[in-house]
């Protein structure tokens, strides 16, 4: 199984542990990743707010490069990147004029032969739960995980084409396959405030506080995420949330791939566990 790999800007710095753990999980499950050479930013979250053409041209450049690599599937672990790549591919297929404009901008043709894949989808449907269960050497028995999907993993359904839009379960299935318990809760697909956390921090804290409260009330030991912005919004500002709302959650926020990697026998360094802000070692201690 060979895929082009588009890490995206966050996975190079603030979400380095997502990159590390995805690569580790892929190695354990026989998924070969080939990084798109010299890839550029997909333009989320600003290009689509300022220029539609720019918002399609930026990710289209990566799609064109993928074709040049001779590959037909690309994995983008960051959900914002994933959505921008998918939108670019779908809109160019639907709108001939737009495709022509983008090709003029890029000075390169696009055949439209690339399938943009969500990394959860690859683990669930290409690797399969059975193989994942067989790869587990250290089951995460007793760990209660609240799976948080956020916005774009399932929305809008015509773009995401993945899982149940209001009550998704794909990440829960993966977490159960590695021996963890998953909790039922009401905030799986609520919004974390995305980029609002930088420009309008106080506003974003209102949203993240609700999500963390929901996870805590459901009895979760930690929250599993699949998006760099979800992770940093929930993890980075728990102190600020405590100061504003008077509740200090101390809730570890981990990428689903970090938990999967650990279950496959990767070291904590391999999955960048020490990089998350709220210390996850106490709840993972027993494992």
């Amino acid at each position, binding site marked *: 199984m060979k895929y082009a790999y588009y890490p995206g*800007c*966050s996975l*190079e*710095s*603030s*979400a*380095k542990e997502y990159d590390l753990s995805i690569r580790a999980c892929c190695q354990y499950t026989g998924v070969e990743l080939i990084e798109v050479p*010299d*890839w*550029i*930013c997909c*333009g989320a*979250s*600003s*290009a*689509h*707010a*300022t*220029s*539609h*053409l*720019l*918002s399609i*041209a*930026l990710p289209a*450049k990566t799609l064109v490069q993928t074709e040049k690599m001779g590959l037909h599937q690309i994995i983008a672990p960051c959900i914002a990147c994933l959505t921008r790549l998918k939108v670019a591919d779908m809109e160019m297929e639907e709108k001939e004029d737009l495709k022509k*404009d983008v090709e*003029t*901008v*890029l*000075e390169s043709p696009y055949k439209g032969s690339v399938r943009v894949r969500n990394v959860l989808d690859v683990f669930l449907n290409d690797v399969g739960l059975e193989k994942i269960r067989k790869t587990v050497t250290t089951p995460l028995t007793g760990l209660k995980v609240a799976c948080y999907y956020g*916005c*774009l993993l399932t*929305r*809008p*359904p015509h773009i995401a084409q993945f899982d149940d*839009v209001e009550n998704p379960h794909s990440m829960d299935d993966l977490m159960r396959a590695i021996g963890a318990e998953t909790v039922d809760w009401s905030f799986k*697909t*609520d*919004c974390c*405030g*995305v*980029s*609002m956390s*930088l*420009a*309008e*921090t106080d*506003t974003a804290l*209102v*949203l993240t506080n609700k999500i963390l409260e929901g996870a805590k009330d459901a009895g979760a030991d930690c929250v599993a995420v699949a998006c760099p912005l979800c992770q940093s919004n929930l993890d*980075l*500002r728990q102190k600020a949330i405590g100061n504003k709302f008077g509740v200090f959650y101390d809730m570890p926020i981990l990428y689903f791939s970090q938990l999967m990697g650990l279950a496959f026998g990767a070291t904590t360094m391999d999955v960048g566990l*020490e*990089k*998350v*802000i709220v210390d996850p070692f106490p709840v993972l201690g027993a494992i």
Partner: protein
Amino acid sequence: MKVAVKEDTTAFAKEIQQKCGQDVLTCYQCRKCTMGCPMAFKMKMKVNELMRAIQLGLREEVLSSDTMWWCVSCETCATRCPQDIEIVEVMDVLREMAFKEGYYIPVESIEAFHKVFLRSVEAYGRLYEMGFAMDLNLQLKDPLKDADLGPVMFAKGKLKLLPHKVKDLKSVKKLFENVRKLEESRV
């Protein structure tokens, strides 16, 4: 009382439809969009009200509203709309129009965010996260914002001091230039 409608109030909705394919005229005010919107508590004009204002042709009011600037593109409204209006695409078109037509953007921090973000992408080909955050805080006139988080993130290896420039920066510059050229030729 008789009300005489002299002009075609649907011109604005049709302009939006022509730009993004979304027909706002089909909205019948069920208000599901506003009910599910996580940012509705910040908006002066709620999402359903914005849809109605577009139907009434209130171009100025819509393009100077704060609604689309608080929208975080979470897609809850578009997912639940019984008329299948992709409301986020409408928001994107409104943002683009307001930007290009020089409207005052009522949430200044968000305007700064988009400008600083794209400046970084154009300069390096990728987002230079630390430079971006510092640049944004300067624009917000709050240079010490999140000063407590910087060292923590740095210690965890989550921040890079220097930008990672792509090798083929020329083609990135070209891409941005070509977009501007093509868009200017169509104004």
